[in-house]
């Protein structure tokens, strides 16, 4: 947490803790535009690239929401750590399950 010498812990939030309307709305515009792009791109025949592109767009949207709207940019270490830890364990979950599923011998279905 930022330790502003003029900011006593008991005070109400100072102005630098409050989001500006323009920052909130800008993020909104970008996230919405990305959503529209995602849907429109579904009509383009991307074949194998479709899934990575969709997940990539969703990830960018998620990062924007988390960083700005969920105030991750305020920098509470515990919050940042918990976000990255979650991602790490999700990654483990996916990778180790797929390590089994993708390497099994299977007869032609």
């Amino acid at each position, binding site marked *: 947490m930022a330790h502003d010498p003029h900011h006593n812990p008991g005070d*109400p939030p100072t102005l630098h803790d409050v989001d500006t309307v323009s920052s909130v709305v800008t993020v909104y515009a970008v996230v919405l535009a990305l959503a529209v792009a995602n849907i429109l791109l579904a009509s383009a025949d991307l074949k194998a690239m479709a899934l990575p592109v*969709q997940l990539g767009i*969703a990830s960018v949207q*998620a990062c924007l*929401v988390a960083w700005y709207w969920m105030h991750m940019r305020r920098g509470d270490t515990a919050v940042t750590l*918990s976000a990255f830890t979650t991602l790490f364990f999700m990654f483990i979950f996916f990778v180790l399950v797929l390590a089994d599923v993708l390497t099994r011998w299977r007869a032609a279905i």
Partner: protein
Amino acid sequence: MSASTHGHGTVLKHHFDNLEQQHSAERLGMWFFLVTEVLFFSGMFVAYTVYRNWYPGEFAFASSHLIWWIAAINTGLLITSSLTMTLAIRSAQLGDKAGLIRRLLLTFALGGGFMGFKALEYTTDYHERFVPGEVFRTEYARPLAELTADDARRKYEGRPVLTAQEVKDYQFKGGQEHWSQDLATRNYGKTPGAEGTVSPERVQLFLMFYYIMTGIHGVHIIVGLGCILWLVCEAWRGAIPREAYSKVEVISLYWHLVDMIWLFLMPLLYLIGTRGGH
């Protein structure tokens, strides 16, 4: 929870030393809860990944028969509701009670709209019998029966049996659902499991994922709507002075996560394969 409007003496709970510690703890508590929510949904995403990898054709087929335009509208509604929720925190921080209530109610309306469209979507799916289990099997059997009967009649009349192209172009007359006609035309005349068939069982597997994942997501939306309504009540009776803004922030963190989950869910369920339209 604090009950009075008078100053931050009652906003501060007795076991905390100061408001900053309290707000910081509340935020961290909600973040930890969000961690559990993400892991909760992860189980389903992992299972989905396994089956999509095994049955890409069936997943693409089923996805193409979902109502994508409702999903598109819902995506817009949810993202906008996250906007209004974030602005609501700002209102709370500035002590703007009217603005706070207005923005919370807007969020509620947008989220309610989401659920409304979802209800429309589910009822449409149900009317189309696009539901796994006995309902699905019965509906799928109908175009198959029509095709079989037509083919048998042709044979009886001495005409050649339906060619593959004729099956593809077949005009159904029996009032079957579009998806079941589509499925029947793809599968008729082929041995199950052959090249180009779409297994109806595995389509049902996709539908399990569709209903369970959107259903659980919907439950989370409803809970969020309840929390927002609670905030409206708290704000109305003056229990959200500037010092207590973190109540709004904590609920907004949850709401943003539910939004983020939808942003991943939507393409994975509705946008598999090239969209040709419903």
